[in-house]
């Protein structure tokens, strides 16, 4: 597929990395020739230097033959103009624009029709929604939702005090007392597909499939504190903070925002009537103590500096904040963070890229392809949702009799009414939704690809 990415900044580069691994024909447009050169030397892409909203540059980038345009520059207006122009030049092109100004958020839906956008993405808002979801069930590091929110893959960290520490997976059910499936374990930076005899160790991060109703029970049985979050401290008053505060206000959670810039504080006060806005430097620990960091139920570090966010999170952890969420904007590879206890890590860039990659895959082959794809375990494994149909092989055969490819695990089978975490006797029928987790690099595009 021919894809044009306008804007080779932080977002554009992350997207290039993902999409070039998918094997699409990519053309990048940017007005800064230096970032283009470095992208060209790193990925197999073509680059065009210039303003992405100008017709001349779009034509040079081959907009007439392109299937998809993704406008990812930092300016919403440029993105929208770019998509409109491209649509004017080629009316069959799909367009995705990044629109992140809060003033446009409410009208995002209307704008989609007005500007003929296929999709509008807002990484900051997406991050805020993700953080809010995490705050609802304190204890999970990450939650990925499937089937419109009924099934989830959640990430848990096994520390020394955890009941699951040094327990083999076969014996796990006695402790958690609900039907769940461990679909991947991240140990020492490597994703492993575990078998029944696999023993969990301290420091492992496990990925668990469960239906959404089970989550509360799972947390309770594991002994993770599950009292409701009442007060949250947000460090940094950027766009993510704003969206998050807005969401939390709605559910009646008290929000404290610490922001350095006085003008921004005034703005935030006007936009968020219920939140308490504190003007000051979040890196000042006395200020944090003064504002009662140890009394917070949760803390999210959302400043523009990754390093500062990490330090603040560590400080929060030390002060006994039970749930800490760290936003990382630049770091591609969370592996290097090792075992720093940063709590949950949220990357707006990553979330947004996943959404777009899903869209691209859906565009590529409509039949038999994965309905949704989530990358889990630091991008080393993928969870995919498939719909079994009449062309699917091995319908009705119990899983224990099937020969699946190495590194492939069926983690969930369901139709409209029934939902099942499968065991060896389970089977799927035509019409079922099947979830597969794999740590293979390539080769799984359709459900039939999982069989040996």
């Amino acid at each position, binding site marked *: 597929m021919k894809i044009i990415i306008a804007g080779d900044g932080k977002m554009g580069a992350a997207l290039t990395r993902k999409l*070039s*691994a998918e094997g699409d024909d990519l053309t990048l447009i940017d007005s800064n020739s230096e970032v283009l050169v470095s992208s*060209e*030397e*790193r*990925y*197999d*892409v*073509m680059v065009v230097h210039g303003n992405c909203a100008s017709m001349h540059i779009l034509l040079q980038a081959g907009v007439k033959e392109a299937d998809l345009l993704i406008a990812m520059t930092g300016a919403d207006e440029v993105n929208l103009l770019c998509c409109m122009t491209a649509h004017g030049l080629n009316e069959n092109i799909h367009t995705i624009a990044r629109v992140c100004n809060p003033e446009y958020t409410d009208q995002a839906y209307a704008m989609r029709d007005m500007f003929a956008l296929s999709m509008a993405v807002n990484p900051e808002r997406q991050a805020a929604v993700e953080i809010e979801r995490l705050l609802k069930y304190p204890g999970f590091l990450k939650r990925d939702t499937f089937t419109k929110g009924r099934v989830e893959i959640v990430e848990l960290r096994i520390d020394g005090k955890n009941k699951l520490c040094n327990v083999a997976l076969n014996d796990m059910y006695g402790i958690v007392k609900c039907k769940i499936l461990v679909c991947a374990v991240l140990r020492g930076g490597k994703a492993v597909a575990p078998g029944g005899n696999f023993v969990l160790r301290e420091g492992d991060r496990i990925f668990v499939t469960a239906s959404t109703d089970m989550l509360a029970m799972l947390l309770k049985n594991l002994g993770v504190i599950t009292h409701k979050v009442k007060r949250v401290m947000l460090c940094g008053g950027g766009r993510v903070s704003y969206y998050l505060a807005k969401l939390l206000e709605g559910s009646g959670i008290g929000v404290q925002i610490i922001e350095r810039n006085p003008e921004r504080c005034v703005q935030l006060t006007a936009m968020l009537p219920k939140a308490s806005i504190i003007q000051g430097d979040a890196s000042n620990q006395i200020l944090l103590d003064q504002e009662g960091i140890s009394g917070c139920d949760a803390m999210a570090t959302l400043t523009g500096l990754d390093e500062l966010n990490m330090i603040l999170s560590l400080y929060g952890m030390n002060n006994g904040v039970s749930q800490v969420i760290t936003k990382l904007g630049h770091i591609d590879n969370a592996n290097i963070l090792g075992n720093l206890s940063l709590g949950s890590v949220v990357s707006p860039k990553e979330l947004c890229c996943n959404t777009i990659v899903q869209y691209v895959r859906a565009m590529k082959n409509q039949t038999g392809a994965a309905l949704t794809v989530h990358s889990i375990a630091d991008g080393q494994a993928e969870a995919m949702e498939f719909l079994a149909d009449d062309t699917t092989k091995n319908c009705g055969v119990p899983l224990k009799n099937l020969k699946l490819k190495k590194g492939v695990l069926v983690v969930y089978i369901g139709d409209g009414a029934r939902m099942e975490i499968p065991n060896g006797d389970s089977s799927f029928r035509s019409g079922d939704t099947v979830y597969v987790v794999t740590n293979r690099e390539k080769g799984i595009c359709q459900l039939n690809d999982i069989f040996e």
Partner: protein
Amino acid sequence: MNYKMMGRFIGRILMVEAVFMVPAMLISLWEKEFGAVRAFMWSMGIIVVVSGLLMFLCRGSRNRFFAKEGMACVGLSWFFMSLLGCLPFYISGVIPDFVDAFFEIVSGFTTTGASILPAVEGLPKGILYWRSFSHWLGGMGVLVFLLAISSMGGRENGFTMHLLRAESPGPNVGKLVPKMKKTARILYLLYVLLTVLDVVFLMLGDMSLFEAVCTAFGTVGTGGFGIRNDSMASFSPYIQNVCTVFMILCGVNFSCFYLLLMKEFKSVFKDEELRLYLGLIVGSVVLIVWNLGDFYASLGETIRHAAFQVATIITTTGFATTDYELWPGFSKAILLSLMIIGASAGSTGGGFKCSRVLLVLKSLRRSVRKIVHPQKVQAVRLNGLPVDEKVLQNTNAYLAAYVTAVLVSFLLISVDGYSITTNLSAVLACFNNIGPGFEMVGPTCNFAAYSTFSKLVLLMDMLAGRLEIFPILILFSRTTWRHR
């Protein structure tokens, strides 16, 4: 340095070379030249063993590659490819001296066409084929071929850009389409198409298939190895004209052909480099015809010879239909100038390249204007677009490297005691991948007379000229091999 990955690359390239020896061997088998068949068998055996060892020892490397590795890799590939490619000549005994055989194959791969063989008629057909085929493979580049047939590892394979840049001639190399593999395929497709067309046209002029194919390899690759002792002189005027046309075509930037196929005629005809290239050809032919006067019997013959000689020199092919050594001084001076200028960037030809000439002249003009208006801010423009300062810097650095390399080689080979004209034209003919020079190395003579040392110098000149100096220069830089 990622030695393992470089080793694997070189291994793969040698494997490609071994595979390409198969047709040459089959021809020898068909012609019952068993000595040559044996030579090819031995050569292929040695190459396969070396390449297999390289690939085995260098397996499982990281797929990270930077500009330095890309350049060094291209330089080394060409060196080893030539070192092993000369084995059939040496083993079959056609060229008994190893350095001579090495010289001959380097001259082939770099599309120079400078020969040390006094007579080629009567040599085994398979050997002749391999000699001509080396032009074809070297013309577009063996790494580009490798890029076209195989996928280069992993997710981040933008490093292939470094390989394309190092092997394709010209100041500003870019891809035609987003995928490197497709770009390389388009280039080779155009190349094969031109070759086939050339063969067809030559066969219409009553050439045998073998002769047509060998001549086409020499023409389309702008190489210049002939299959007759007198190069092209004894062929019919029709065949000579076909060669003229195809030589000129192959001196054009191949991206122009791609744009023509994409029906973007406007940007092709407005291309400044193409205009300069064609203008130089027409201008030189007119001036030479005027200067020759009634040197030949008819005006038609004069034009034919003038056009052929101009085309063969500017595209750096090196065929000959007549001995231009006998021409008047002005005509020879024109040919000498064309030798230095060379063909277009992104073509199969060598030389300094028309686009570099344009850039150098334009930045010269800017410098002169700067003296008159010291405060004036101005960009050098090519095809209406401002040229990046980095490209200009590199072009100027290339000019400096070019002059230095020519001067040093000239001094080195002057030890042999031949005349200044002979030595200078020999260096120019080798460095610009032309083939024949003037006087002792003129179109009717060859390079056999030079000493072994001079041959090695000229051989390095040919490689440096084909790969545009830097990939060879970097091999001799100490910082390249130092650990980071």
